[in-house]
C-alpha cells in the first residue's frame, strides 16, 4: 500500500490494467492526481486516454490494479464515487428532442434539487453559457458548439468535486473553445478538480497545472508543462530559412558548428537543434554567423524552450498527431 500523502489525492491509480481482447488499452498505469487545479492526460488517439477516464468515472471495470477516486474504490464503492464526480464525454450527452432548459432541469432533478430550484439553476447556467436565447428551443436545433456548452453546463448543475472532461473541445470552433476553457478556469477557481484528456498540446499547455503524457496505455512522463518541456532539453535553436533550396547545406553547416544533430521540421524551411543551457546563446550566435557567411538567407530565428510537440516527440518517439500539425506560437 502507498503512504498517505499530505495533499489529499483526487485520483490514485496503481497498476491499472484494462484489456480488450488481446489489446491492452491500459497497461499497468500509475497515476496520482492531486486535489485542485487542472490535470491533463495528453496523448494521441488510441493511447488509452478515454478508457482510463471511463474507469475513473465508474463506467468501465478495470481488469486489474487499484483505483481510488475521491478516496473511494471505483470497483467496490461506485455509488460513493459518483456522488462527487461528473463526466462530460466526447459526445454531447444531452437529449436532442428536449429543450436546453428541460435538459438542465432533468439533470438537476436527478441530483435531488427541487422543482423550483432546478428551474432557477437551469436559467442561471443557460445565462452563464450564453444559451439564454436558445433556452426554449429543442437541442436538435443547436450548433455543435452550443450542444457542447450545454453538455458542460449540465455537468455543473451541482458543482462536482471532480470533473472529467473527455476531449472537451474536439471539433469546436476557436471561439467556443475559448468559452469552454473559460468555464473550466472558473470552475477550478471554485475548488473543483478537473481531469481532462486532450490531444491538443496547446490545450494542455494553456489550461493545465500538471500534465501526464500517456502512450500505449502507460504514463511515459508527468509534470508541470514547464518541467515537461525542460526535461527534453533546456534550449532549442529554431532557424527559418528564406530559401528552402539551401536547407541541406545549411543543415550540415549548422550541425558542424554546434556539434549536435540538426533536424528538419515538417516545414522544410525550419531547422531545429537542441543546445544545452551553458553557452547556448554563444553557440547559437556562432552558428548563425556561419550560416550568414555561407550566403544562406536566414528569415528568422529563435532560441528558447522546446514546444510541447517536441517534448512529446522526445518522450514517446513519435509525433503527437500524425500529420499537418500546425505549430502554435
Amino acid at each position: 500500500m502507498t503512504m498517505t500523502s499530505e495533499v489529499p489525492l483526487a485520483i490514485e491509480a496503481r497498476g491499472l490494467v484494462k484489456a480488450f481482447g488481446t489489446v491492452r488499452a491500459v497497461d499497468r498505469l500509475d497515476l496520482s492526481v492531486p486535489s485542485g487545479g487542472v490535470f491533463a492526460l495528453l496523448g494521441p488517439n488510441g493511447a488509452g486516454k478515454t478508457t482510463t477516464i471511463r474507469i475513473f468515472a465508474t463506467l468501465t471495470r478495470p481488469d486489474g490494479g487499484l483505483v481510488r477516486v475521491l478516496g473511494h474504490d471505483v470497483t467496490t464503492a461506485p455509488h460513493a464515487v459518483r456522488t462527487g464526480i461528473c463526466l462530460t464525454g466526447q459526445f454531447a450527452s444531452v437529449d436532442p428532442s428536449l429543450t436546453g432548459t428541460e435538459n438542465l432541469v432533468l439533470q438537476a432533478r436527478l441530483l435531488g434539487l427541487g422543482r423550483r430550484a432546478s428551474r432557477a439553476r437551469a436559467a442561471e447556467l443557460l445565462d452563464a453559457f450564453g444559451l439564454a436565447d436558445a433556452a426554449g428551443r429543442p437541442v436538435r436545433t443547436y450548433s455543435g458548439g452550443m450542444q457542447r456548452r450545454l453538455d458542460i453546463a449540465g455537468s455543473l448543475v451541482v458543482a462536482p468535486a471532480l470533473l472529467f472532461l473527455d476531449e472537451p473541445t474536439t471539433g469546436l470552433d476557436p471561439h467556443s473553445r475559448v468559452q469552454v476553457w473559460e468555464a473550466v478556469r472558473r470552475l477550478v477557481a471554485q475548488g473543483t478538480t478537473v481531469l481532462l484528456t486532450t490531444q491538443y498540446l496547446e490545450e494542455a499547455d494553456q489550461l493545465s497545472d500538471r500534465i501526464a503524457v500517456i502512450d500505449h496505455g502507460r504514463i511515459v512522463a508527468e509534470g508541470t508543462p514547464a518541467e515537461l518541456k525542460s526535461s527534453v532539453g533546456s534550449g532549442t535553436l529554431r532557424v527559418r530559412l528564406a530559401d528552402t533550396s539551401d536547407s541541406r547545406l545549411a543543415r550540415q553547416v549548422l550541425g558542424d558548428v554546434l556539434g549536435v544533430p540538426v533536424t528538419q521540421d515538417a516545414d522544410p524551411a525550419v531547422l531545429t537543434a537542441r543546445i544545452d543551457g551553458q553557452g547556448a546563446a554563444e553557440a547559437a550566435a556562432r552558428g548563425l554567423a556561419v550560416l550568414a557567411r555561407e550566403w544562406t538567407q536566414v528569415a528568422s530565428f529563435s532560441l528558447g524552450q522546446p514546444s510541447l510537440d517536441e517534448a512529446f516527440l522526445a518522450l514517446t518517439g513519435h509525433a503527437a498527431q500524425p500529420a499537418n500539425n500546425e505549430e502554435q506560437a
Partner: protein
Amino acid sequence: MTATIEPRTLTRQGHDAGRRPRMVRNTLTMAWRAMLRIRREPELATDAIFIPVLFTLMFTYLFGGALAGSPREYLRFLLPGTLVLTVLLITVTAGVSLNTDRARGTLDRYRSMPVWQPAVVVGGLVGDIARYVLATCLVLGMGLLMGYRPPGGAGGAVLAVVLILVFAFSVSWIWTALGLALRSAQAVTVLSFAVQLPLTFASNVFVSPATLPGWLRAFVNVNPVSHLVTAERALMDGTPAASQVGWVLLASAALIAVFGPLTMHLYRADLNGR
C-alpha cells in the same frame, strides 16, 4: 457570458453525499423525461395512434365477414385480441430508445451520476405506459363506435386494460435487454420483430387453437399471449377469469425475473468502452 456559473450553496458535499439513491424519485424523473420526449416529438407516438385505429378497422372488416353474426357479436371475439396485438406491437420501441441513448452517450452521463441506476430503464418504461394507455383508449373507443359493448361492463374493461399494461411493461424488458445487447437501432428493430411476430400471431388472437395442427397448438397453448387474450376476453365478457389472470401475472413476473437482471447486467457492461 458574464453571469455566474458559481455553484453557490449547491455543492455536492452538502446535499447528496453518502445518501442512498432515491428509487421512486429518480424513476419518476426519468418517466417525466420519456413523456417530455413524446410531447416534443409527437412522431414518437404515431405508432400508438395509427396501429390501434388501423388494426381495429382492418381486423373487424377483414375477419368480421368470416365470422358469424353482427359486428357487435364478433367484436366480442376480435376486440380483446386486437387490443393485445396493438399494445404488444408498440412495446418494441422501448429497446430502440435505450439503444440510441447509449449510442449518443446519454447513458454514460446517467451511469456516472449518483442515481438509482435501474431508474434509467424503469423510468423509460413507466413513461411508455402513457403510449400504451393512448393506444388502448383508441382501440376501445373505435370498438364502441362500431357498436361494441363489453358485457363485463366498464369495470371489466378497466381491469382488462390494467392487465394488459402489466403484461406490456413486463414484455418490454425483453426489448430493453435486446436494445442494450445489440449495437445498432436497426438490429434492435429487426430482431424485436422477429421475436414479436411469432409471439403475437402464434396465439389465439384470431383463431381458435382447435383448428391448428398439433405442434402449433402446443405452442399456442403455452404462449403467454394466448393466456392474456383469454383473460382479456373473460374480463370484458364478465365471465370468471381468475385462473387466466393468475397465469398472466405469473408470466409477467417470470419475464421480469429473467430479463430485468439481464437488462441491468448489460446496462452495467460497458459496450461504449469499445
